[in-house]
């Protein structure tokens, strides 16, 4: 189990890095596009599809990491008022349902990506449409691995690697909006 947890630490780190690099890239690419258009006077078409692709990467890898960190918004009102035994049963049920939806993301995501693999994005022909769909099933795999970890070893949202960004002054909430 320890090995699996450590592997998941790496996966978590990987997801955060990929997602973090994606948001940094998109924050640079779009201003560059504006600069090129307004200052250099030659608008380029590529920043837009590149940024959107980065956003898709950011979303699905980041959401997987966020699942491990327990920051997804869930309605806990009813569940928290139930007796402990019921809560545990429901927690398993939630895990099973989460596995189902991640399987859906993986299977249908790959299938979709495969079907349209050879189409190109109009504004940037080197970018294949199929590729832009790929973060969906890949993120699905990451979530699935995190769910397995949760079933096996319980929630890992308090691991140091997951919480290192928290302030020493705890203003952290579980499942918070932005």
């Amino acid at each position, binding site marked *: 189990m320890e090995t699996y947890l450590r592997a998941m630490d790496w996966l978590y780190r990987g997801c955060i890095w990929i997602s973090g690099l994606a*948001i940094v890239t998109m924050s640079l690419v779009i201003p560059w596009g504006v600069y090129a258009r307004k200052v250099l006077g030659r608008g380029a078409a590529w920043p837009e599809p590149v940024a959107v692709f980065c956003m898709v990467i950011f979303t699905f890898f*980041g959401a997987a990491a966020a699942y491990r960190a327990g920051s997804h918004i869930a309605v806990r009102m009813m569940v928290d008022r139930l007796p402990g035994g019921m809560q545990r049963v429901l927690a398993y049920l939630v895990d099973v349902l989460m596995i189902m939806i991640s399987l859906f993301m993986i299977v249908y995501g790959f299938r979709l990506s495969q079907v349209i693999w050879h189409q190109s994005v109009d504004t940037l022909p080197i970018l294949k449409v199929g590729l832009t769909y790929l973060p969906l099933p890949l993120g699905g795999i990451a979530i699935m691995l995190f769910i397995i970890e949760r079933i096996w070893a319980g929630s890992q949202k308090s691991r140091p690697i997951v919480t290192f960004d928290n302030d020493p002054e705890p203003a952290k909430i579980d499942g918070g909006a*932005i």
Partner: protein
Amino acid sequence: MDALVLLGSLAILLAIGVPVAYSLGIASIVGALWLGVPLESVMIKISSGVNSFMLLAIPFFVLAGAIMAEGGMARRLVSFAYILVGFIRGGLSLVNVLASTFFGAISGSSVADTASIGSVLIPEMAKKGYPRDFATAVTCATSVQALLIPPSHNAVIYSLAAGGTVSIGTLFLAGIIPGLLLGGTMAALCLFFAYRHRHPKGEAIPLRQALKIAMEALWGLMTIFIIMGGILSGIFTATESASIAVVWAFFVTMFIYRDYKWKDLPRLIHRTVKTVTIVMILIGFAASFGYIMTLMQLPQKMTQFLTGLSDNKYTILLIINIMLLALGTMMDMAPLILIMTPILLPLTRSLGIDPVHFGMLMIVNLGIGLITPPVGSVLFVGSAVARLKIEQVVKAMLPFYFGLLFVLLVITYVPAISLFIPWLAGMLSDRQFCVSTGLFCN
């Protein structure tokens, strides 16, 4: 029956604790299976839901706000507000209100507002003799301004949920007066309490020092002028303005303020990833859910149902408000905007309510939901920052709830409050303005 399958499965999934985003996804799969729609089309909707250029504005605005809030901006905005209103009786509560107004102009997050302004002002107010629960209540209640005053990523989410028929720029302009109205109402309440409970006065700041503080704050407040100026003059789109806000925020905190360290950046990005992606994936799954709802013709049915109850638009608006307030106490803002907008917008349109006006109503209404128990993320953050029990804060908050409800009613029944500036800026035609508000019809 269709509706029961879709909404029923969503309700069950939410109740047993499946995260909201995935509940929407599973419910749309259930709905698709029920209708016999191929699951591929659900998948296509999810991925096209997050494949939009407009959507980029959300992570950008949140990131820009986060950089400035953590890079010492909050403290400077508080100081700036202090030189303007600190010397009045109850000065620090007024500072709290005004700092939130300013904060709203750099960030659209009332959670971030509460966390960053609260951590500066709640201890300060407690030290100067304000009751701690009162200080927290003021912080939470005034943070709703951040949702209205541009830039507001919730306005972007609403614009997306409305199917792109309402421009982000128009919504930004529309939020200005409602935001200030909310701030003004809160300030009036604070003044009332200040005189009743003899809250202390602050001292005036010498001019020289005041100028220096103002200059520093202006660097940050420039963001809003860059964003609005860019959008209104057509130099760049809302999404582009958001990305430029990120670059500007980075520039100001790193090279002007210089109290943020490079090594803190990974933490900031880490936090942004954890908070923003949950909203992004929510948008993706909500797109598939919206698609199934449309196939089931739920919005039309909802319209028929509600117009069957009453044909008076004021009554229907009241029903909608009560419904949203009830939902808002249990759920967060973004999912509710994404689920409820496609259901309610056809109805309100058919009643002649401008979608921009309706958007403001929805944002204020759901914003109140963020500070009401049992589930209110602003309330949770506020109590955590103040180290108080939630019940204590809620008790101190009671008069402010009335203030907020008053603002909600005014925004609901006086459309001109939301539509006046968009009309002035030419985003709304004279005819549209006349039809929605009954003003300037000649």
